[in-house]
Protein backbone atom coordinates (compact mmCIF):
# COMPACT_ATOMS: atom_id res chain seq x y z
CA UNK A 1 0.00 0.00 0.00
CA UNK A 2 1.35 3.37 -0.97
CA UNK A 3 1.99 5.67 1.92
CA UNK A 4 0.07 8.92 1.78
CA UNK A 5 2.98 11.16 2.67
CA UNK A 6 0.79 14.25 2.35
CA UNK A 7 -1.13 13.14 5.40
CA UNK A 8 1.90 13.64 7.64
CA UNK A 9 3.16 16.88 6.20
CA UNK A 10 1.60 19.97 7.61
CA UNK A 11 0.55 22.35 4.86
CA UNK A 12 2.71 25.48 5.00
CA UNK A 13 1.23 28.53 6.67
CA UNK A 14 1.62 32.06 5.39
CA UNK A 15 0.90 35.46 6.86
CA UNK A 16 -1.91 37.45 5.31
CA UNK A 17 -3.31 40.86 6.11
CA UNK A 18 -7.03 40.72 5.46
CA UNK A 19 -8.97 43.79 4.39
CA UNK A 20 -12.76 43.63 4.40
CA UNK A 21 -14.71 45.40 1.69
CA UNK A 22 -18.15 45.57 0.05
CA UNK A 23 -19.55 43.77 -2.94
CA UNK A 24 -22.83 44.67 -4.58
CA UNK A 25 -23.56 41.11 -5.69
CA UNK A 26 -22.97 39.68 -2.22
CA UNK A 27 -24.94 42.49 -0.59
CA UNK A 28 -27.96 41.87 -2.78
CA UNK A 29 -28.08 38.07 -2.48
CA UNK A 30 -27.52 38.24 1.29
CA UNK A 31 -30.26 40.84 1.62
CA UNK A 32 -32.62 38.49 -0.19
CA UNK A 33 -31.62 35.49 1.88
CA UNK A 34 -28.84 35.55 4.42
CA UNK A 35 -28.99 31.79 4.76
CA UNK A 36 -28.77 30.98 1.05
CA UNK A 37 -25.97 29.08 -0.67
CA UNK A 38 -25.36 32.11 -2.90
CA UNK A 39 -24.82 34.33 0.13
CA UNK A 40 -22.36 31.82 1.56
CA UNK A 41 -20.57 31.44 -1.76
CA UNK A 42 -20.02 35.18 -2.14
CA UNK A 43 -19.18 35.78 1.54
CA UNK A 44 -16.96 32.82 2.52
CA UNK A 45 -14.30 33.95 0.11
CA UNK A 46 -10.83 35.44 0.14
CA UNK A 47 -9.34 37.11 -2.93
CA UNK A 48 -5.57 37.07 -3.30
CA UNK A 49 -2.97 38.06 -5.86
CA UNK A 50 -2.67 35.29 -8.46
CA UNK A 51 1.15 35.14 -8.33
CA UNK A 52 1.09 35.09 -4.53
CA UNK A 53 -1.33 32.17 -4.62
CA UNK A 54 1.02 30.31 -6.92
CA UNK A 55 3.91 30.98 -4.55
CA UNK A 56 1.84 29.66 -1.65
CA UNK A 57 0.75 26.66 -3.69
CA UNK A 58 -2.90 27.58 -3.41
CA UNK A 59 -4.99 26.84 -6.46
CA UNK A 60 -7.76 29.11 -7.61
CA UNK A 61 -10.94 27.87 -5.95
CA UNK A 62 -9.17 25.83 -3.27
CA UNK A 63 -10.36 25.82 0.32
CA UNK A 64 -8.11 27.63 2.76
CA UNK A 65 -8.14 27.94 6.51
CA UNK A 66 -7.75 31.45 7.86
CA UNK A 67 -6.72 31.70 11.46
CA UNK A 68 -6.32 34.79 13.56
CA UNK A 69 -5.93 35.23 17.29
CA UNK A 70 -9.71 35.52 17.49
CA UNK A 71 -11.05 32.79 15.30
CA UNK A 72 -10.60 30.38 12.44
CA UNK A 73 -12.72 29.78 9.33
CA UNK A 74 -12.42 27.82 6.12
CA UNK A 75 -13.26 29.79 3.00
CA UNK A 76 -12.63 29.52 -0.72
CA UNK A 77 -9.56 31.24 -2.18
CA UNK A 78 -9.90 33.10 -5.45
CA UNK A 79 -7.26 34.70 -7.61
CA UNK A 80 -7.81 38.39 -8.19
CA UNK A 81 -8.23 39.27 -11.86
CA UNK A 82 -5.91 42.20 -11.22
CA UNK A 83 -2.52 42.48 -9.61
CA UNK A 84 -2.70 42.93 -5.84
CA UNK A 85 -0.14 43.98 -3.28
CA UNK A 86 1.82 41.13 -1.75
CA UNK A 87 0.54 39.75 1.52
CA UNK A 88 -2.96 41.18 1.21
CA UNK A 89 -6.22 39.27 1.12
CA UNK A 90 -9.66 40.73 0.50
CA UNK A 91 -12.88 39.45 2.04
CA UNK A 92 -16.40 40.76 1.70
CA UNK A 93 -17.94 42.14 4.84
CA UNK A 94 -19.93 39.43 6.59
CA UNK A 95 -19.82 36.83 9.35
CA UNK A 96 -16.85 34.92 7.90
CA UNK A 97 -14.41 37.80 7.96
CA UNK A 98 -15.93 38.99 11.22
CA UNK A 99 -15.00 35.69 12.84
CA UNK A 100 -11.37 36.83 12.50
CA UNK A 101 -11.61 40.43 13.72
CA UNK A 102 -10.01 41.45 17.01
CA UNK A 103 -12.17 42.30 20.01
CA UNK A 104 -9.80 45.13 20.84
CA UNK A 105 -11.27 48.42 19.76
CA UNK A 106 -10.15 51.09 22.21
CA UNK A 107 -11.58 53.82 19.99
CA UNK A 108 -14.84 51.95 19.40
CA UNK A 109 -13.88 51.03 15.83
CA UNK A 110 -12.86 47.41 15.21
CA UNK A 111 -9.93 46.68 12.88
CA UNK A 112 -12.20 45.55 10.03
CA UNK A 113 -9.58 46.43 7.44
CA UNK A 114 -6.45 45.38 9.28
CA UNK A 115 -6.77 41.72 10.21
CA UNK A 116 -3.57 39.75 10.79
CA UNK A 117 -4.13 36.10 9.99
CA UNK A 118 -2.45 32.90 8.80
CA UNK A 119 -3.53 31.20 5.63
CA UNK A 120 -3.08 27.54 4.83
CA UNK A 121 -4.59 25.06 2.37
CA UNK A 122 -7.35 23.10 4.02
CA UNK A 123 -9.04 19.81 3.33
CA UNK A 124 -11.97 20.88 5.49
CA UNK A 125 -15.21 22.08 3.99
CA UNK A 126 -16.17 25.73 4.01
CA UNK A 127 -17.31 26.83 7.45
CA UNK A 128 -21.10 26.87 7.46
CA UNK A 129 -23.22 29.56 8.99
CA UNK A 130 -24.30 27.13 11.75
CA UNK A 131 -20.70 26.42 12.67
CA UNK A 132 -19.98 30.13 12.82
CA UNK A 133 -22.76 30.41 15.34
CA UNK A 134 -21.06 27.90 17.61
CA UNK A 135 -17.72 29.68 17.55
Amino acid at each position, binding site marked *: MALDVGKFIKAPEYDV*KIISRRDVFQASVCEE*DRFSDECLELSALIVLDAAEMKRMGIQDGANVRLTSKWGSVVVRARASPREEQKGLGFMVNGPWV*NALVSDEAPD*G*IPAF*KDIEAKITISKDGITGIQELHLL
Partner: protein
Amino acid sequence: MTEPITWTCTGCALLCEDILVYIKDNRVEKVEHACLKGKARVYGCKHTAMSTVDQEEVDINNAIIQAAEILEKASNPSLYGWSNSTSEAQVAGIELAQTLGACIDSTSSFCQGITINEIMNGSIPSCTLEDVREKADVVIYWGADPMSSHPRHLSRYSYFPRGELRQRGYEEDRTAICIDVTESRTAKMCKGMFFRIPPGGDAEFMRALMDGLAGRVPKLSYDFDVKRILELAAVLKKAEFGVIFAGLGLVYSIKEEFDLISEFMSTLNRFSNFFLIPMAGHFNMRGFNHNLHKKTGFIHRLGFTKNGPVSGVEYSVLEQLKHGADAVMVVGSDPLASLPLSITKRLKDIPLILVDPCANLTSRVADVTIPCVASGIEVGGTAVRLDGKNMDISPLIQGDGLSDEMVIRRIMEEVN
Protein backbone atom coordinates in the same frame (compact mmCIF):
# COMPACT_ATOMS: atom_id res chain seq x y z
CA MET B 1 -49.31 47.33 -17.28
CA THR B 2 -50.26 49.30 -14.18
CA GLU B 3 -49.00 52.85 -13.65
CA PRO B 4 -45.72 52.87 -11.77
CA ILE B 5 -45.15 54.58 -8.44
CA THR B 6 -42.17 56.92 -8.20
CA TRP B 7 -40.22 55.77 -5.20
CA THR B 8 -37.21 56.76 -3.11
CA CYS B 9 -34.93 53.76 -2.73
CA THR B 10 -33.80 52.72 0.74
CA GLY B 11 -31.18 50.28 -0.57
CA CYS B 12 -28.34 52.61 0.45
CA ALA B 13 -27.71 56.17 1.63
CA LEU B 14 -27.83 57.57 -1.91
CA LEU B 15 -31.64 57.46 -1.53
CA CYS B 16 -32.27 57.49 -5.31
CA GLU B 17 -35.61 59.22 -5.75
CA ASP B 18 -36.21 58.34 -9.40
CA ILE B 19 -37.15 54.69 -9.01
CA LEU B 20 -40.28 53.40 -10.72
CA VAL B 21 -42.06 50.53 -9.04
CA TYR B 22 -44.92 48.60 -10.61
CA ILE B 23 -47.31 47.16 -8.05
CA LYS B 24 -49.97 44.56 -8.70
CA ASP B 25 -52.24 43.16 -5.99
CA ASN B 26 -50.18 44.90 -3.32
CA ARG B 27 -47.03 43.11 -4.52
CA VAL B 28 -44.02 44.44 -6.37
CA GLU B 29 -44.16 43.32 -9.97
CA LYS B 30 -41.24 45.19 -11.50
CA VAL B 31 -38.78 47.90 -10.56
CA GLU B 32 -37.04 50.26 -12.95
CA HIS B 33 -33.85 52.32 -12.57
CA ALA B 34 -32.89 50.74 -9.22
CA CYS B 35 -29.54 48.95 -9.04
CA LEU B 36 -29.20 45.38 -7.83
CA LYS B 37 -29.07 46.52 -4.19
CA GLY B 38 -32.20 48.59 -4.62
CA LYS B 39 -33.94 45.72 -6.34
CA ALA B 40 -33.14 43.42 -3.43
CA ARG B 41 -34.51 46.03 -1.03
CA VAL B 42 -37.76 46.50 -2.97
CA TYR B 43 -38.49 42.80 -3.21
CA GLY B 44 -37.61 42.25 0.44
CA CYS B 45 -36.12 39.32 2.28
CA LYS B 46 -37.18 35.72 1.84
CA HIS B 47 -37.26 34.88 5.54
CA THR B 48 -39.25 37.37 7.55
CA ALA B 49 -38.77 37.66 11.29
CA MET B 50 -41.21 35.93 13.61
CA SER B 51 -42.61 37.15 16.84
CA THR B 52 -40.80 35.07 19.46
CA VAL B 53 -39.86 34.82 23.12
CA ASP B 54 -37.08 32.36 23.98
CA GLN B 55 -37.16 31.29 20.32
CA GLU B 56 -40.78 30.14 20.67
CA GLU B 57 -43.41 31.78 18.52
CA VAL B 58 -45.73 34.05 20.50
CA ASP B 59 -48.29 36.75 19.91
CA ILE B 60 -46.58 40.05 19.05
CA ASN B 61 -48.11 41.74 22.10
CA ASN B 62 -46.45 39.20 24.36
CA ALA B 63 -43.14 39.80 22.63
CA ILE B 64 -43.51 43.54 23.14
CA ILE B 65 -44.39 43.11 26.83
CA GLN B 66 -41.42 40.76 27.30
CA ALA B 67 -39.10 43.25 25.58
CA ALA B 68 -40.32 46.05 27.82
CA GLU B 69 -39.78 43.87 30.90
CA ILE B 70 -36.22 43.04 29.89
CA LEU B 71 -35.38 46.69 29.28
CA GLU B 72 -37.00 47.86 32.51
CA LYS B 73 -35.24 45.23 34.59
CA ALA B 74 -31.83 45.96 33.16
CA SER B 75 -29.65 48.39 35.03
CA ASN B 76 -27.71 49.32 31.90
CA PRO B 77 -29.75 48.64 28.77
CA SER B 78 -28.31 49.53 25.40
CA LEU B 79 -30.22 50.33 22.21
CA TYR B 80 -28.36 49.80 18.97
CA GLY B 81 -28.88 49.78 15.19
CA TRP B 82 -31.08 52.54 13.76
CA SER B 83 -29.44 53.06 10.35
CA ASN B 84 -32.18 51.11 8.57
CA SER B 85 -34.97 53.03 10.28
CA THR B 86 -36.77 56.20 9.32
CA SER B 87 -36.00 59.35 11.28
CA GLU B 88 -39.39 58.98 12.99
CA ALA B 89 -38.40 55.57 14.38
CA GLN B 90 -34.97 56.94 15.37
CA VAL B 91 -36.59 59.78 17.32
CA ALA B 92 -38.85 57.26 19.08
CA GLY B 93 -35.77 55.18 19.91
CA ILE B 94 -33.97 58.19 21.36
CA GLU B 95 -37.01 58.93 23.52
CA LEU B 96 -37.11 55.33 24.71
CA ALA B 97 -33.41 55.49 25.59
CA GLN B 98 -34.03 58.66 27.55
CA THR B 99 -37.00 57.09 29.38
CA LEU B 100 -34.90 54.05 30.27
CA GLY B 101 -31.72 55.97 31.06
CA ALA B 102 -30.13 53.74 28.47
CA CYS B 103 -27.20 53.95 26.08
CA ILE B 104 -28.00 54.47 22.43
CA ASP B 105 -25.68 54.10 19.45
CA SER B 106 -25.87 53.40 15.74
CA THR B 107 -23.71 51.75 13.10
CA SER B 108 -22.17 55.19 12.52
CA SER B 109 -20.18 54.47 15.69
CA PHE B 110 -17.71 52.36 13.72
CA CYS B 111 -18.50 53.78 10.29
CA GLN B 112 -18.71 57.38 9.10
CA GLY B 113 -19.81 58.95 12.41
CA ILE B 114 -16.37 60.44 12.97
CA THR B 115 -16.51 62.15 9.54
CA ILE B 116 -20.11 63.30 9.88
CA ASN B 117 -19.25 64.85 13.26
CA GLU B 118 -16.47 66.93 11.71
CA ILE B 119 -18.79 68.05 8.90
CA MET B 120 -21.59 68.93 11.33
CA ASN B 121 -19.28 71.01 13.51
CA GLY B 122 -17.93 72.84 10.49
CA SER B 123 -14.36 71.51 10.55
CA ILE B 124 -14.70 69.87 7.15
CA PRO B 125 -16.46 71.65 4.27
CA SER B 126 -19.12 69.59 2.55
CA CYS B 127 -21.63 70.01 -0.26
CA THR B 128 -24.67 68.25 -1.70
CA LEU B 129 -24.76 65.56 -4.36
CA GLU B 130 -26.65 68.02 -6.59
CA ASP B 131 -23.67 70.39 -6.27
CA VAL B 132 -21.46 67.50 -7.35
CA ARG B 133 -23.58 66.77 -10.40
CA GLU B 134 -23.93 70.40 -11.49
CA LYS B 135 -20.45 71.68 -10.71
CA ALA B 136 -17.80 69.10 -9.84
CA ASP B 137 -14.90 68.82 -12.27
CA VAL B 138 -12.56 66.81 -10.03
CA VAL B 139 -13.79 63.95 -7.86
CA ILE B 140 -11.65 61.75 -5.63
CA TYR B 141 -12.77 58.37 -4.37
CA TRP B 142 -10.47 57.90 -1.42
CA GLY B 143 -10.62 54.49 0.25
CA ALA B 144 -14.08 54.28 -1.28
CA ASP B 145 -15.47 51.93 -3.91
CA PRO B 146 -18.94 53.22 -4.72
CA MET B 147 -19.21 50.85 -7.68
CA SER B 148 -19.39 48.09 -5.05
CA SER B 149 -21.20 49.91 -2.25
CA HIS B 150 -23.36 52.63 -3.84
CA PRO B 151 -23.76 51.40 -7.43
CA ARG B 152 -25.47 54.50 -8.89
CA HIS B 153 -23.08 56.99 -7.31
CA LEU B 154 -21.07 57.64 -10.48
CA SER B 155 -24.00 57.51 -12.88
CA ARG B 156 -26.35 59.70 -10.87
CA TYR B 157 -24.02 62.31 -9.45
CA SER B 158 -20.28 62.07 -9.34
CA TYR B 159 -18.95 61.23 -12.79
CA PHE B 160 -21.17 60.39 -15.75
CA PRO B 161 -24.09 62.84 -15.75
CA ARG B 162 -24.19 66.14 -17.56
CA GLY B 163 -24.45 69.00 -15.10
CA GLU B 164 -25.14 72.70 -15.27
CA LEU B 165 -21.46 73.53 -15.55
CA ARG B 166 -20.51 70.13 -16.97
CA GLN B 167 -22.36 69.92 -20.24
CA ARG B 168 -19.85 68.16 -22.43
CA GLY B 169 -19.80 64.73 -20.87
CA TYR B 170 -17.51 63.12 -18.40
CA GLU B 171 -14.58 62.45 -20.76
CA GLU B 172 -14.01 66.17 -21.23
CA ASP B 173 -15.58 67.77 -18.20
CA ARG B 174 -14.70 65.63 -15.24
CA THR B 175 -11.61 64.00 -13.81
CA ALA B 176 -12.14 61.01 -11.54
CA ILE B 177 -9.35 59.98 -9.20
CA CYS B 178 -9.13 56.89 -7.03
CA ILE B 179 -6.78 56.41 -4.09
CA ASP B 180 -6.99 52.91 -2.68
CA VAL B 181 -5.05 49.79 -1.71
CA THR B 182 -6.56 47.78 -4.55
CA GLU B 183 -7.65 48.47 -8.10
CA SER B 184 -11.34 48.38 -7.28
CA ARG B 185 -14.28 48.53 -9.69
CA THR B 186 -14.32 52.26 -9.07
CA ALA B 187 -10.56 52.52 -9.73
CA LYS B 188 -11.24 50.93 -13.10
CA MET B 189 -13.40 53.94 -13.97
CA CYS B 190 -10.55 56.34 -13.14
CA LYS B 191 -8.30 55.72 -16.12
CA GLY B 192 -4.70 56.77 -15.47
CA MET B 193 -5.81 58.32 -12.18
CA PHE B 194 -5.61 55.34 -9.87
CA PHE B 195 -3.10 55.72 -7.04
CA ARG B 196 -2.35 52.47 -5.28
CA ILE B 197 -1.13 53.00 -1.74
CA PRO B 198 -0.15 50.46 0.90
CA PRO B 199 -2.67 49.68 3.69
CA GLY B 200 -2.40 52.40 6.32
CA GLY B 201 -0.52 54.64 3.89
CA ASP B 202 -3.27 57.25 3.60
CA ALA B 203 -1.96 59.80 6.11
CA GLU B 204 1.47 59.81 4.51
CA PHE B 205 -0.06 60.13 1.06
CA MET B 206 -2.13 63.06 2.28
CA ARG B 207 0.95 64.77 3.71
CA ALA B 208 2.83 64.11 0.48
CA LEU B 209 0.00 65.73 -1.44
CA MET B 210 0.10 68.73 0.89
CA ASP B 211 3.84 69.01 0.19
CA GLY B 212 3.10 68.82 -3.51
CA LEU B 213 0.47 71.55 -3.23
CA ALA B 214 2.90 73.79 -1.35
CA GLY B 215 5.59 73.25 -3.97
CA ARG B 216 7.80 71.06 -1.79
CA VAL B 217 9.18 67.70 -2.87
CA PRO B 218 7.03 65.04 -1.20
CA LYS B 219 8.70 62.42 0.96
CA LEU B 220 7.24 59.00 1.57
CA SER B 221 8.48 56.04 3.57
CA TYR B 222 7.00 53.66 1.01
CA ASP B 223 7.87 53.30 -2.62
CA PHE B 224 5.83 55.71 -4.70
CA ASP B 225 6.62 57.71 -7.83
CA VAL B 226 6.90 61.27 -6.50
CA LYS B 227 6.29 62.63 -9.99
CA ARG B 228 2.79 61.18 -9.96
CA ILE B 229 2.02 62.87 -6.64
CA LEU B 230 3.15 66.20 -8.06
CA GLU B 231 0.99 65.64 -11.13
CA LEU B 232 -1.98 64.85 -8.91
CA ALA B 233 -1.35 67.96 -6.80
CA ALA B 234 -1.37 70.01 -10.02
CA VAL B 235 -4.76 68.50 -11.01
CA LEU B 236 -6.21 69.31 -7.58
CA LYS B 237 -4.89 72.88 -7.70
CA LYS B 238 -6.61 73.51 -11.01
CA ALA B 239 -9.97 72.13 -9.88
CA GLU B 240 -12.88 74.57 -10.04
CA PHE B 241 -15.09 72.45 -7.81
CA GLY B 242 -13.49 69.41 -6.26
CA VAL B 243 -15.09 66.74 -4.10
CA ILE B 244 -13.51 64.02 -2.01
CA PHE B 245 -15.67 60.99 -1.33
CA ALA B 246 -14.25 59.59 1.89
CA GLY B 247 -14.70 55.85 2.21
CA LEU B 248 -14.08 53.61 5.19
CA GLY B 249 -10.66 52.75 3.74
CA LEU B 250 -9.61 56.34 4.41
CA VAL B 251 -11.52 56.75 7.67
CA TYR B 252 -10.13 53.61 9.30
CA SER B 253 -6.62 54.27 8.09
CA ILE B 254 -6.52 57.83 9.37
CA LYS B 255 -8.78 57.63 12.43
CA GLU B 256 -5.96 58.11 14.93
CA GLU B 257 -4.99 61.42 13.39
CA PHE B 258 -8.35 62.42 11.98
CA ASP B 259 -7.59 66.15 12.28
CA LEU B 260 -5.29 65.63 9.33
CA ILE B 261 -8.34 65.58 7.07
CA SER B 262 -9.43 69.09 8.04
CA GLU B 263 -5.82 70.25 7.79
CA PHE B 264 -5.64 68.70 4.31
CA MET B 265 -8.91 70.36 3.28
CA SER B 266 -7.66 73.77 4.51
CA THR B 267 -4.38 73.36 2.65
CA LEU B 268 -6.22 72.27 -0.47
CA ASN B 269 -8.62 75.19 -0.24
CA ARG B 270 -5.78 77.71 -0.10
CA PHE B 271 -5.29 76.80 -3.76
CA SER B 272 -8.59 75.37 -4.81
CA ASN B 273 -12.22 74.74 -3.88
CA PHE B 274 -12.74 71.31 -2.35
CA PHE B 275 -15.51 69.63 -0.38
CA LEU B 276 -15.81 66.25 1.30
CA ILE B 277 -18.75 63.85 1.42
CA PRO B 278 -18.78 60.76 3.66
CA MET B 279 -19.75 57.48 2.00
CA ALA B 280 -22.37 56.49 4.56
CA GLY B 281 -23.76 53.04 3.84
CA HIS B 282 -27.21 52.34 5.29
CA PHE B 283 -30.04 54.49 4.07
CA ASN B 284 -30.56 56.58 7.19
CA MET B 285 -27.25 56.28 9.01
CA ARG B 286 -26.76 60.02 8.82
CA GLY B 287 -30.32 60.64 9.98
CA PHE B 288 -29.53 59.08 13.35
CA ASN B 289 -26.61 61.48 13.79
CA HIS B 290 -28.79 64.47 12.92
CA ASN B 291 -31.70 63.36 15.10
CA LEU B 292 -29.60 62.59 18.16
CA HIS B 293 -27.69 65.83 17.72
CA LYS B 294 -30.92 67.81 17.66
CA LYS B 295 -31.96 66.23 20.95
CA THR B 296 -28.67 66.04 22.85
CA GLY B 297 -25.92 67.89 20.99
CA PHE B 298 -24.10 64.60 20.33
CA ILE B 299 -24.23 62.49 17.20
CA HIS B 300 -23.80 58.96 18.61
CA ARG B 301 -22.26 56.84 21.45
CA LEU B 302 -24.64 58.33 23.93
CA GLY B 303 -25.55 57.51 27.50
CA PHE B 304 -28.58 59.08 29.18
CA THR B 305 -26.99 59.32 32.62
CA LYS B 306 -28.25 60.85 35.87
CA ASN B 307 -26.26 63.93 34.88
CA GLY B 308 -27.93 64.14 31.49
CA PRO B 309 -26.81 62.94 28.08
CA VAL B 310 -23.10 62.13 27.80
CA SER B 311 -21.19 60.92 24.78
CA GLY B 312 -17.98 58.93 24.81
CA VAL B 313 -16.31 55.74 23.70
CA GLU B 314 -17.59 53.93 26.83
CA TYR B 315 -21.10 54.40 25.45
CA SER B 316 -20.16 53.08 22.01
CA VAL B 317 -21.89 49.93 20.84
CA LEU B 318 -18.57 48.09 20.85
CA GLU B 319 -17.84 48.85 24.51
CA GLN B 320 -21.46 48.24 25.45
CA LEU B 321 -21.52 44.83 23.79
CA LYS B 322 -18.15 43.91 25.24
CA HIS B 323 -18.90 44.65 28.87
CA GLY B 324 -21.18 47.63 29.48
CA ALA B 325 -24.70 46.56 28.67
CA ASP B 326 -26.72 44.02 30.67
CA ALA B 327 -29.50 43.96 28.04
CA VAL B 328 -29.43 44.96 24.39
CA MET B 329 -32.14 45.90 21.95
CA VAL B 330 -31.15 45.86 18.29
CA VAL B 331 -33.30 47.67 15.75
CA GLY B 332 -32.79 47.07 12.02
CA SER B 333 -29.36 45.53 12.19
CA ASP B 334 -27.63 42.16 12.35
CA PRO B 335 -24.68 42.57 14.69
CA LEU B 336 -23.92 38.87 14.63
CA ALA B 337 -23.16 39.18 10.93
CA SER B 338 -21.70 42.66 10.79
CA LEU B 339 -19.66 43.01 13.98
CA PRO B 340 -16.65 41.00 15.19
CA LEU B 341 -17.76 37.63 16.53
CA SER B 342 -15.17 38.04 19.29
CA ILE B 343 -17.38 40.84 20.59
CA THR B 344 -20.89 39.70 19.68
CA LYS B 345 -20.49 36.29 21.30
CA ARG B 346 -21.38 38.00 24.59
CA LEU B 347 -24.84 38.69 23.16
CA LYS B 348 -25.67 35.04 23.84
CA ASP B 349 -25.12 35.61 27.55
CA ILE B 350 -27.24 38.72 28.08
CA PRO B 351 -30.91 39.38 27.27
CA LEU B 352 -31.17 40.33 23.62
CA ILE B 353 -34.13 41.84 21.76
CA LEU B 354 -34.30 42.21 17.99
CA VAL B 355 -36.74 44.41 16.09
CA ASP B 356 -36.35 43.72 12.37
CA PRO B 357 -38.39 42.83 9.28
CA CYS B 358 -36.11 39.89 8.48
CA ALA B 359 -34.79 36.76 10.12
CA ASN B 360 -31.02 37.04 10.42
CA LEU B 361 -28.14 35.65 12.46
CA THR B 362 -29.07 37.82 15.43
CA SER B 363 -32.70 36.66 15.41
CA ARG B 364 -31.44 33.11 15.84
CA VAL B 365 -30.00 33.87 19.26
CA ALA B 366 -32.28 36.70 20.42
CA ASP B 367 -34.41 36.16 23.52
CA VAL B 368 -37.15 38.25 22.01
CA THR B 369 -37.74 38.97 18.32
CA ILE B 370 -40.35 41.45 17.18
CA PRO B 371 -41.10 41.66 13.47
CA CYS B 372 -41.71 45.05 11.94
CA VAL B 373 -42.57 46.07 8.40
CA ALA B 374 -39.69 47.24 6.19
CA SER B 375 -38.94 50.96 6.34
CA GLY B 376 -39.44 52.60 2.99
CA ILE B 377 -41.45 49.66 1.69
CA GLU B 378 -44.44 49.27 3.95
CA VAL B 379 -43.95 52.39 6.02
CA GLY B 380 -42.82 55.84 4.94
CA GLY B 381 -41.19 58.72 6.74
CA THR B 382 -38.11 60.83 6.32
CA ALA B 383 -34.42 60.05 6.03
CA VAL B 384 -31.14 61.91 5.61
CA ARG B 385 -29.06 61.19 2.52
CA LEU B 386 -25.30 60.64 2.86
CA ASP B 387 -24.64 64.30 2.03
CA GLY B 388 -27.04 65.52 4.73
CA LYS B 389 -30.05 66.31 2.52
CA ASN B 390 -33.47 65.50 4.03
CA MET B 391 -35.51 63.14 1.89
CA ASP B 392 -39.13 62.04 2.04
CA ILE B 393 -39.84 58.36 1.74
CA SER B 394 -43.32 57.20 0.88
CA PRO B 395 -44.43 53.64 1.44
CA LEU B 396 -44.84 51.35 -1.55
CA ILE B 397 -47.32 48.81 -0.38
CA GLN B 398 -49.85 48.40 2.37
CA GLY B 399 -48.35 46.41 5.22
CA ASP B 400 -50.42 44.78 7.93
CA GLY B 401 -47.68 44.72 10.55
CA LEU B 402 -46.31 47.32 12.93
CA SER B 403 -43.57 49.72 11.88
CA ASP B 404 -40.41 49.82 13.99
CA GLU B 405 -41.54 53.22 15.26
CA MET B 406 -44.84 51.71 16.42
CA VAL B 407 -43.05 48.78 18.08
CA ILE B 408 -40.81 51.18 19.98
CA ARG B 409 -43.74 53.39 21.01
CA ARG B 410 -45.59 50.30 22.21
CA ILE B 411 -42.57 49.24 24.27
CA MET B 412 -42.44 52.75 25.69
CA GLU B 413 -46.08 52.53 26.75
CA GLU B 414 -45.34 49.27 28.54
CA VAL B 415 -42.27 50.75 30.21
CA ASN B 416 -44.21 53.78 31.39
